[in-house]
């Protein structure tokens, strides 16, 4: 069975020119450095990591906002960077997104109706009546009143705006929604509502999610699989329950310990020392070694290879 979305050895390097007009020297920010994973239909794959680990770049490549430097993104077996225009239109319908900032995601001059309509209109695949029906249905699905249609974004709260953004994503009946930190900017009290809504929608509509987050606590009850990213690489990937009960990589362990120690509340700080290194100049060998509580000599020199500990559990660490 084909996975819905398959990422194969995906890389994105950004060139940075050294200062000086005549300098030819180019250094690279390796935002995404060899990512491979897949998402099955109706499943939630959560990608967790600190800011700067490359999560957003990953989502941009999946959404066709950036081209990969290397590697492939396969959707239903098709390489998205080699699609013709017709296929791209279908892809854009099938893969939608919700961004983090509810205040910047909605165009201030457009009514909710037009905002939700935008992907429908752009695809050119629906008649006016069909679009109107879908907008109505989408608003229902996110538990918003029909009269929201004629209002402007500034009349709504953050949580409501995210629901509008979600309605927009749902309008085309996608198979996959990329959720880039969908609740990070919301009040803690509102987060549970939105996450529950997402879960209900997944069950009701068979949606797959790529859930990008920096906080392990929020994503727990929604994820089927968890992937942990560090400086552009996936250091561990496992089914959700296995991950939470037995994280293998020291970085995963630290993230989990931090989330747990705060009682499952949002927490960015980890029990690690130091900060995430600059992606322009990552530490040699295993990128994580300067902060690793179980660092060994080999970690400083040789980059670890991904190993499958179980059939489903991958980890990238010299300890295994």
């Amino acid at each position, binding site marked *: 069975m084909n996975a819905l979305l398959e990422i194969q050895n995906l890389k994105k390097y950004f060139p940075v020119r050294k200062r000086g007009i005549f300098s030819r020297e180019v250094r690279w920010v390796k935002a995404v450095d060899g990512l491979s994973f897949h998402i099955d239909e109706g499943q939630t794959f959560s990608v967790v990591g600190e800011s700067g680990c490359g999560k957003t770049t990953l989502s941009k490549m999946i959404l*066709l906002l950036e081209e990969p430097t290397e590697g492939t993104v396969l959707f239903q077996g098709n390489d998205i960077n080699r699609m013709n225009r017709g296929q791209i239109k279908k892809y*854009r319908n099938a893969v939608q997104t919700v961004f983090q900032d509810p*205040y910047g*995601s909605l165009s201030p001059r457009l009514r909710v109706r037009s905002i939700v309509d935008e992907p429908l209109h752009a695809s050119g695949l629906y008649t006016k009546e069909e679009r109107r029906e879908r907008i109505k249905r989408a608003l229902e699905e996110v538990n918003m009143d029909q009269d929201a249609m004629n209002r402007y974004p500034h009349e709504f709260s953050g949580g409501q705006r995210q629901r509008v953004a979600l309605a927009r994503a749902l309008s085309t009946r996608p198979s996959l929604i990329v959720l880039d930190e969908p609740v990070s900017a919301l009040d803690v009290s509102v987060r549970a509502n939105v996450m529950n809504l997402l879960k209900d929608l997944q069950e009701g509509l068979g949606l797959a999610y790529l859930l990008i987050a920096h906080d392990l606590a929020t994503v727990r009850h929604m994820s089927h699989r968890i992937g942990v990213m560090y400086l552009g690489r996936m250091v561990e990937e496992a089914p959700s329950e296995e991950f939470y009960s037995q994280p293998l990589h020291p970085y995963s362990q630290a993230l989990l310990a931090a989330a747990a120690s705060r009682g499952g509340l949002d927490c960015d700080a980890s029990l690690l020392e130091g900060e995430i290194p600059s992606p322009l100049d990552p530490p040699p060998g295993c990128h994580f070694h300067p902060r690793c509580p179980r660092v060994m000599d080999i970690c400083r020199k040789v980059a670890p290879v991904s190993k499958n500990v179980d059939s489903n559990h991958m980890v990238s660490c010299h300890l295994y």
Partner: protein
Amino acid sequence: MRSAVWRRPGLIYVPMFILFLFVFVGVFGPWLAPHSTTDVDLSSRNEPGFWDGNWSNPMGTDSLGRDVLSRVIVGTRTTLEFCVLAIAMAGTVGTFLGLVAGYFGSWIDVIIMRLVDLALSVPFILLAMVLTVTLGAGFMNLVIIIALLLWAGYTRQVRAEVLSLKERDFVALAKVAGVSPQRIIARHIFPNLTHLIIVLATLQVGYVILIEAALSYLGVGIPPPEPVWGSMVSDGRAFLNTAWWVSTFPGIAIGLVVLSLNLLGDWLRDKLDPRLRQV
């Protein structure tokens, strides 16, 4: 001090009223003027106005016996037409270029911005004089010349705003949805520019009036016998001691309108900006 004055509620109605008057007189001018603006009556040159008991010419007459009040009134229309045309031209071209430069970037941006630099570094009065002499003075010629002065201001500010708008999430989301660049510009970028354009236009009207006045004063403005405030001020130069009213009344008109426009423009800028910043 200026901000304290107009921030008091209701005080903005004063400049608004003045400007309303300006537009009203501009539209209905010719019917309101008591006398002809062009009939020369050499027997009643430089006569004082209402302070001397002369109610037939309340603002006095100029050196050719023409009624100053009528000329100020009809001059309002000329000034209004002039401003609207020049700013419409400059605003349309300037905004379009700013949009293109800001949204598409790369070499188009480079070319347009070099043109902007050129336009802004030209010594304007000199250019206006040269062009007037070579192309001939005339209403439309002067409108075009002044539009040439103004467009670059729009382009620069519009481009800056477009650059910042381009990075907003809702633009990225539109791209993800597959919306074409033209439609993104039309639906997402341009509507968020209107507040900027309105404020710019309002502030520029005052500038245009002053420039036209300066050019007329120098003799390269709209040619006679059209009543134009700037020329009227210039005409009365020689008689400032004796027939001071010839220059003073048109001068007051210029001052009032420009001041009102500046106050209105500042007020508009404050009124329109924070609301959008909150988004």
